[in-house]
């Protein structure tokens, strides 16, 4: 069946290549465009010549650190470069902006906000990059007709002139907007702006990130803000939580990127889970927008529709990436659709005008919580078409890890509760597969809008969630250093703390059987899987493990008109080009660290470049860097 599908796909691509719409060859947003398709019409690099790609330029920003929980803190370089205004702009984990010459990487200017190098709300310092706005009616000779924005962990949003790198003093307070002025739980933590704002017309739509997995009931409500792009004035606020829930809950924030339908002006929010993350006994109110996709009018902030993807979320299954907007041709009709990848491994395909499912969503009974006071949902939404990226049941214990650890993996597993997907957290410890680390992470998927193909990378991971009574939690964490207590979260204001950790043996080997990650392509006109392949490689002590194991992945693919997928994402510090038709790796190159950011591609002076930010992510490996590297065909 897959072979037949591949042949059909090849034929469709041959026919469709010529009719590809003339999209910009810029890379104007974190996701390439507002629809989050991560698709480029650039066609210079093809499956035939991709093997000739060479480094065109690279820079090291100097903004990286491997110091855990100190000053400077560890860094997570997750910024996607954008290419607009004939310039490559990239944000760094120290919240600096680099403006680069697109063909040489030569620095045009650097903006430095001199932000404190402290990990206030995250395990390390991180930035997912910058956003860009330009005036529809630019005034000649005036600065700040084009603005680049970067947010910081201290909840500041900086507006910088795109040509000079100087602060736009007409924006908010001398070019700086303090988002924390709208914090509903002051004194907890700042509403960190790690994801660049979404820019549509003259509106900045701003979500924020916090520390909801760690802190409990008293957390800022996850409100989203619409702000004037030129002045920084607040235009609207979307209150995610009902007022009665704000006292005992919080967050349900939008920390990931959003997408916008430019035709309708609707912005699509991936809304995260409410706090406390792993126990919901004090948030029994209906929280319909929590762990949902919510569609708003981008100019007013009014809700158009909303669909909850997890009821009463006690797994930290945040909706964590911008839904990919693509049109699906089905039964002779063109349906405006969106595809939402999720941590729990489902791909929700909805009509983006109404929120109604295009492929069925079924409410199924799930395992029930045995924690006193919990008010878990008896059912959860399931999707079977498209095939979930992570199956319902895990692959079992890894024999190698079990033998190497003297049977430790089996001994741990026997003590755990495991009832398949949606096993609730428990006092004995519950095996979660997939857990909060996914599934699919914040990069989400990519779409080839011409052929209706959707591509997504995922991880297969297992974690253990163990709730600890307050007394046990306090006893266990007493005297621990900050690093020792890194996996213990107090969930303050609740009867339970929680211990969330990877299911590893004492040697640090994963106790679950491979594969660890894969890359998949779906035909969204039928919902059928076209191909699914283990992706990336795992390195242990430098040795590359079998390719069939794949790698845990963080990051996302992009697609070009010529049928190429470019992706970093894997643990092995390699970037790859993959054939969209077959899933075969056609090219790979070593970079300094895992490239966990979404790549970007653009054409400048007739030449196509593919840029990767290879900064690493300590969640994957300790290997980090500050490298930004562009590949191109030799002249």
């Amino acid at each position, binding site marked *: 069946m897959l072979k037949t599908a591949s042949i059909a796909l090849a034929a469709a691509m041959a026919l469709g290549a010529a009719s590809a719409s003339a999209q910009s060859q810029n890379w104007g947003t974190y996701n390439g465009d507002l629809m989050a398709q991560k698709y480029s019409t650039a066609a210079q690099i093809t499956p035939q010549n991709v093997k000739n790609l060479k480094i065109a330029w690279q820079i090291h920003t100097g903004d990286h650190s491997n110091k855990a929980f100190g000053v400077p803190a560890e860094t997570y370089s997750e910024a996607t470069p954008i290419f607009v205004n004939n310039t490559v702009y990239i944000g760094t984990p120290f919240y600096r902006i680099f403006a680069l010459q697109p063909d040489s990487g030569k620095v045009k200017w650097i903006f430095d906000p001199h932000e404190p190098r402290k990990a206030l709300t995250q395990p390390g310092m991180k930035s997912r990059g910058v956003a860009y706005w330009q005036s529809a009616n630019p005034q000649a000779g005036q600065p700040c007709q084009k603005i680049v924005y970067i947010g910081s962990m201290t909840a500041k949003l900086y507006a910088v002139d795109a040509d000079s790198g100087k602060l736009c003093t007409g924006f908010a307070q001398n070019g700086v907007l303090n988002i924390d002025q709208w914090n509903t739980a002051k004194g907890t933590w700042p509403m960190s702006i790690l994801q660049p704002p979404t820019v549509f017309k003259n509106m900045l739509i701003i979500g924020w990130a916090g520390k909801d997995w760690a802190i409990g009931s008293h957390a800022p409500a996850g409100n989203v803000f619409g702000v004037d792009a030129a002045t920084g004035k607040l235009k609207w606020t979307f209150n995610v939580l009902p007022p009665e829930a704000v006292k005992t809950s919080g967050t349900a924030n939008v920390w990931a990127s959003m997408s916008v339908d430019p035709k309708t002006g609707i912005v699509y929010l991936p809304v995260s889970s409410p706090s406390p993350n792993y126990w919901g006994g004090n948030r029994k109110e209906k929280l319909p927008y929590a762990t949902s996709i919510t569609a708003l009018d981008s100019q007013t902030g009014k809700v158009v529709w909303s669909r909850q993807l997890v009821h009463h979320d006690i797994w930290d299954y945040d909706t964590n990436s911008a839904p990919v907007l693509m049109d699906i041709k089905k039964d002779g009709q063109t349906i405006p659709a969106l595809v939402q990848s999720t941590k729990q491994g489902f791909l929700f395909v909805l009509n983006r005008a109404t929120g109604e499912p295009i492929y069925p969503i079924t409410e199924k009974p799930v395992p029930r919580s045995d924690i006193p006071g919990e008010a878990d949902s008896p059912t959860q939404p399931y999707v079977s078409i498209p095939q979930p990226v992570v199956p319902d049941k895990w692959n079992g214990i890894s024999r190698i890890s079990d033998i190497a650890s003297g049977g430790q993996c089996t001994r741990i597993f026997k003590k755990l509760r495991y009832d398949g997907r949606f096993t609730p957290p428990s006092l004995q410890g519950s095996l979660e597969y997939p857990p909060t680390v996914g599934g699919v992470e914040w990069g989400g998927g990519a779409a080839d809008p011409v052929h209706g193909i959707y591509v997504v990378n995922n991880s297969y991971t297992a974690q253990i969630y163990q709730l600890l009574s307050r007394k046990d939690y306090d006893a266990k964490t007493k005297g621990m250093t900050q690093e020792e207590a890194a996996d213990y979260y107090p969930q303050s204001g609740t009867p339970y703390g929680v211990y969330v950790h990877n299911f590893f043996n004492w040697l640090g080997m994963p106790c679950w059987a491979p594969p660890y990650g894969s890359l998949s392509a779906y035909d969204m006109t039928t919902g059928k899987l076209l191909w699914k392949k283990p992706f990336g490689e795992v390195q242990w002590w*430098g040795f590359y493990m079998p390719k069939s194991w794949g790698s845990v992945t963080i990051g996302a693919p992009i697609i070009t008109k010529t049928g190429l997928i470019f992706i970093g994402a894997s643990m092995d510090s390699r970037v790859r080009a993959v054939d969209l038709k077959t899933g075969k790796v056609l090219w790979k190159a070593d970079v300094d660290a895992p490239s966990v950011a979404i790549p970007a591609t653009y054409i400048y002076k007739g030449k196509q470049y593919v840029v990767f930010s290879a900064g690493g992510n300590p969640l994957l490996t300790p290997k980090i860097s500050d490298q930004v590297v562009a590949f191109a065909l030799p002249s």
Partner: protein
Amino acid sequence: MRLSNSIAIPDRPSLNGARLIAIAAAVGFVICLVDYFTPHGAIAHQWGTLLVLVSTALMLWASSWIGFGTMPHRLFTLFRVLIILDILGTAVCAYFLESTTLLVCMVVALIGWIWHLAGGAPRISAS
């Protein structure tokens, strides 16, 4: 003559074979050294790279001994066995480290070992 007291003296083909092993091991060692210290290299500062650094160093030392030194016959035979195990082990490591050049070095070393063996039994002299 008691065999344990005999001394193995390599003849010409054995000597050439041992030289080839030594050269391959030396080149492999240098490659590993560079890989180990290359900033952000794919196998930099990895235990696996350290392991092949040690194994190639041992191979260089052992091949020098059987090529240029004299030793009791039993020890000579033991060295031959250990060297082929070292070559094969290092080759397996090179494969999993995805170090093509090191793998090529081990193929050359293997050719050297076969050449060394084809040289026939070393001349024996009484101690």
